[in-house]
Structures are given as structure tokens and as C-alpha cells.
């Protein structure tokens, strides 16, 4: 184990989790397919290209929807949109949460109290209601759902980071930095922040999975991504009626399967990351 880089050690510990490796491969395949949607999709996702509600055929391998659009193309684009919403919402909430958590934990006092009260307030908002209100005020769509999900998810990150900073501030290595006369920016960004990245990354994977589920739920309710733009949620929305559920499974089974696969894979990868990033697991 001599001269192993930090990254090498993490990779080696990650590879011990067989399930997570399988999930990571699946996840990468899904992401690549979604990103390459404009190249590999055989038809336009928004324009009719065949018979209405046709079951899978050679031309339309996953069938067509009720106005004749190719389901395979729509799922590719929908996965792209859902991943984008999930990723950007996670990015926003993580950045906001890390910044507020760092400030709150390191400076303490009145600043800490103010930030934490605000955090508790946001946490107690029922987000479905928030989305309904926001949708009523703004145009519902991809960007408003990204911003809303980003706004409701940061408090968890902020609390996690704050707790970490509070315990790191008391460690002897931070005390040693103080007695060595190191500046505050060094203590914050070189000592404390790198030690909070691992738990934040793990937490972010679960926020990512949750954001995808939330997007699906909101779009299913018609409050999220708006048709004709496809998303995994509003594809399911097309399967509301009992006749579709029982008689035309190609309209909802693939979309549902993609959601389950995405969320499950992200969660498994997150669990393995948690173990891999902990340097004590040597």
C-alpha cells in the first residue's frame, strides 16, 4: 500500500462493493444514453411519427403514445431532462447548504442562530404546497422545478456541514493550526472543508435520487416539467387511466423502470462512496 494516491485508495475500497460497481456501470450507461439522446433517438420526441398507441413494433421498439410519438425516443429525452433537473437541484442545494453550514458552524453566535432558524423554517415547509404556490405565481416548467427543489433540499446539507464544522473546530489539528498562527482562511478551506466533503458527497447522492423522485411526482401532478417536453414524471402522467395501466403497459412500464433503476443505482453508489471515502476503512 506504499505510495498509493488518495484517489487510488478510494477506488480500491469502492471496488470491493460488487453491487455498487454494477450499479455504477448501469448508471453510466443510462447517463450516456440520455446525453446522446439527440444522436441515437430514432424519432423526434415531440412530433408524431407513427400510429396512435401502437404496441412495440420493429419501427417503434417501445411502441407509440396516444398521439403517435415514439416512446423510445421520448424516454431517452425524458431521462436526460430528469437527470438534468436532479443534478442541478442537487448542485444548487449542496452549494447553498455548504456555504451556510460553514458560516454557521465556524462563526457561531448570532450568525449561527439566524442561519439555523431560517434552516428550520425552510425545513418545515411542505414542499408540495410550496411548488403549487410557486407554480401559481411563476410559469411551471423545468427551471422553476430546479430552483424549487434546490431551495427545499439545502437545509439537510447545511445542518450536516454545520455539525461537522462544530466537531472539527474542536480537533487538535485545528488547535495546532491556531497555535502555529495559521490564518482563518487556511483553517476553513484547507483543514475543515476537505474533511466535510466526503459526508456532503454521500448526502448529495441521496439528494440526487430524491430530486429525481420529486421531479417525477411533481411532473406527474402536472406541476413540473410541462408537455410537450418529456420527463420521466410526465410520461407516467400519460398512464393515469385504468385502461392504459392494464391494456397498454408499454406507455408506463419502461418509464417507471428507468426511475426505479436510476434511484436504486444512485443509492447503492452513495452507500459504497460512504465506505470508500472514510480513510479509517483501511
Amino acid at each position, binding site marked *: 500500500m506504499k505510495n498509493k494516491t488518495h484517489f487510488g485508495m478510494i477506488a480500491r475500497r469502492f471496488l470491493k462493493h460488487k453491487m455498487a460497481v454494477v450499479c455504477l456501470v448501469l448508471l453510466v450507461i443510462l447517463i450516456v444514453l440520455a446525453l446522446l439522446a439527440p444522436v441515437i433517438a430514432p424519432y423526434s420526441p415531440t412530433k408524431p411519427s407513427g400510429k396512435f398507441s401502437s404496441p412495440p413494433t420493429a419501427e417503434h421498439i417501445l411502441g407509440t403514445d396516444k398521439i403517435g410519438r415514439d416512446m423510445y425516443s421520448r424516454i431517452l429525452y425524458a431521462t436526460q431532462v430528469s437527470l438534468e433537473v436532479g443534478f442541478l437541484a442537487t448542485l444548487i442545494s449542496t452549494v447553498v447548504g455548504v456555504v451556510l453550514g460553514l458560516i454557521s458552524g465556524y462563526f457561531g453566535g448570532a450568525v449561527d442562530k439566524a442561519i439555523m432558524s431560517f434552516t428550520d423554517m425552510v425545513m418545515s415547509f411542505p414542499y408540495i404546497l410550496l411548488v403549487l404556490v410557486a407554480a401559481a405565481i411563476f410559469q411551471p416548467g423545468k427551471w422553476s422545478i430546479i430552483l424549487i427543489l434546490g431551495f427545499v433540499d439545502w437545509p439537510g446539507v447545511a445542518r450536516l456541514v454545520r455539525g461537522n464544522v462544530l466537531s472539527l473546530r474542536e480537533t487538535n489539528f485545528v488547535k*495546532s493550526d491556531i497555535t502555529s*498562527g*495559521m490564518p482563518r482562511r*487556511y483553517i476553513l478551506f484547507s*483543514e475543515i472543508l*476537505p474533511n466535510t466533503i466526503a459526508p456532503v458527497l454521500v448526502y448529495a447522492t441521496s439528494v440526487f435520487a430524491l430530486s429525481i423522485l420529486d421531479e417525477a411526482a411533481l411532473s406527474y401532478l402536472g406541476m413540473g416539467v410541462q408537455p410537450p417536453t418529456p420527463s420521466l414524471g410526465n410520461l407516467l402522467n400519460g398512464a393515469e387511466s385504468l385502461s392504459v395501466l392494464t391494456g397498454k403497459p408499454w406507455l408506463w412500464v419502461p418509464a417507471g423502470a428507468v426511475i426505479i433503476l436510476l434511484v436504486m443505482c444512485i443509492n447503492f453508489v452513495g452507500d459504497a462512496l460512504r465506505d470508500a471515502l472514510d480513510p479509517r476503512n*483501511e
Partner: protein
Amino acid sequence: MIDEMAVLEVRHISKDYRISGENSLIAKTFHAVEDVSLSVRKGETFGIVGESGCGKSTLARLMVCLEKPTSGEVLFQGMRMDTMPEGQLRRVRPRFQMVFQDSGSSLNPRKRVQDILREPMLYHRIGNRQQVDRRVDELLEMVGLPVEMKDRYPHAFSGGQRQRICIARALSLNPDVIVLDEPVSALDVSVQAQILNLLRELQEKLGLTYVFIGHGLGAVHYVSHRIAVMYLGQIVEYGSSDELFDHPAHPYTKALLDAAPVAQVDARDRIRTSLKGEMDEEPPRGACPLFNRCPFADASCEKFENRMREIAPGHFTVCSRAKEG
């Protein structure tokens, strides 16, 4: 206690902590350190002993300005440290360093040993990149660690090795004084001896001044030139290491010495001084802090004055009943 040769000095220093109850209506004050004065001379090792909770670690943190005293003064080479503005203090700080008891949390788990040692030196411009890298190797050699281990992470080291890294870090900024807060208490006995010998060697080679805090009397006696005994936040006795061990004057020191196990068969039947009760028993108002527990206490101890009395040259105690000469 004004001392010409003092490098590090504290004068009438106190530190109070407020303990607020659950509903914070009743706020109690806890005196962790109470009116302590001492001066540490250049090149010596000044030992501080006392049982856990007596305030010795708080005193250590006050001495390196990790905490501000409630009252009193901290002086480093005659400079007032406790009131110094943060920016100025940061430039003086490298000259008095600290080594902690728990070496596990003393090193950032995400940094290689060489980065841990290098970064403070680069910040304080001890030299350029190459000079600093060379100095990292020198420091590791000095504390007896193989130089090849510098690109490992702290978890790859044993407790004793980690403590060596901490000592190397403390040395890296060329300090005058190192405050060692129970540096060997968490280590195996065999490793303790190695670290203590290393500390003595380094002191001779570099002319360092140590403040050595411990509860293991053997270790403190072994390294210290002078020793102070603390009880309930106050110093009750101090003097040269041998004098204190051969002629303890304060009943608390006697009890502390007699409580230590001795590796001699005929020592089993020696007469022991032992204390009654527990440390948290509060003595009557105005009485000696040890009043309840002291086997020698009499009516004269009910009026206690916290003043040091010299009972032999360089040997001081607060106990009014200690015999002179």
C-alpha cells in the same frame, strides 16, 4: 514571583467557565484556574502535575493563548500575550507551540505527513519550496521517523509515531517554548519512555524550554527540573523536582506521591498519606481547599490565605502547617 530568566510567565491568572442549567436561570461559575502565578525559565522543563480535572490542561491552553484568561496576565519574553491583537499574535505564535495528548485527532486525516509539516513552514516563509522540503526530511530524522514515510497518511502510523509527527510539527517553526499537554499519557509504557527520551534529547540539542503537563508522576519527575502541583485550579506547591519528591511539604503532594505504585517489595509497608472523600466536595468558605480531605487539618486551616511561603530555597507551598527547613 518575578523572575529575570523567565521566558513564559503567567501572573495571577484565572479562568472561569459559566455552567448554565437547562433553563439557564441559575448560572453557576466554575473556577477552572484560580489565581495562578508561575514563571518558566529558559532551557528548563517545568512540570505541572495534578489529578484529572484540576485545571492543568486549561492552564496549558491559557499559556499558549488558545483561551483568554478571565483575569491575569500571560507574558512571553516580557510581551503581554493575552491582550495582543490577533494579527500581531499570529506572528508571535510560532515561538510557543503545543503538543496534545490525543495524537489521533492532532493530525488531519486527509493530509500526508509531509503536507502537515510543510504548510505552516511555507506560510511563515521559513524558506522556499526546496528548503522547506529538505527541512521536512530533517525534522522526521530528528524525531526518529523514516523519511520514506513522509507521503503516508496519519492513519498508517502507530500512536507513538503520530506523537513523533506532532513533535516534529511543533519543532518546525523553530519555537522557544513547547507546552506538552500529557504527551505520553495515551501511549504504552515502553513507548512513553522512548518519547520522553526523545524530548530530553531535543531539549539538549535545540535549547528548548518545556512546560510538561502530566498526571503520571514518574514521567513528570523524569523530565522536569521544577514541578508545580495543582489542586482545584490552584498551585499548592512548587519547587525543584528532586526537592519536591524527597521532601514534599503539602499534604496533597504527599498523598499524590504515596498513591503512586512503587516497584519495590519492601516499599509495600511504607506509611502512606491518603486523602478522604472526593475532589468535588466543597470546603467551607474561606478554608483551605483541601480542608475536608486533609488528614492533618486543624482549626488553623479554616482561615486560608492563598499565598506562597518559601520553606526551603526555591521550594514554595501554600500550606500553613508545612514545616520549614
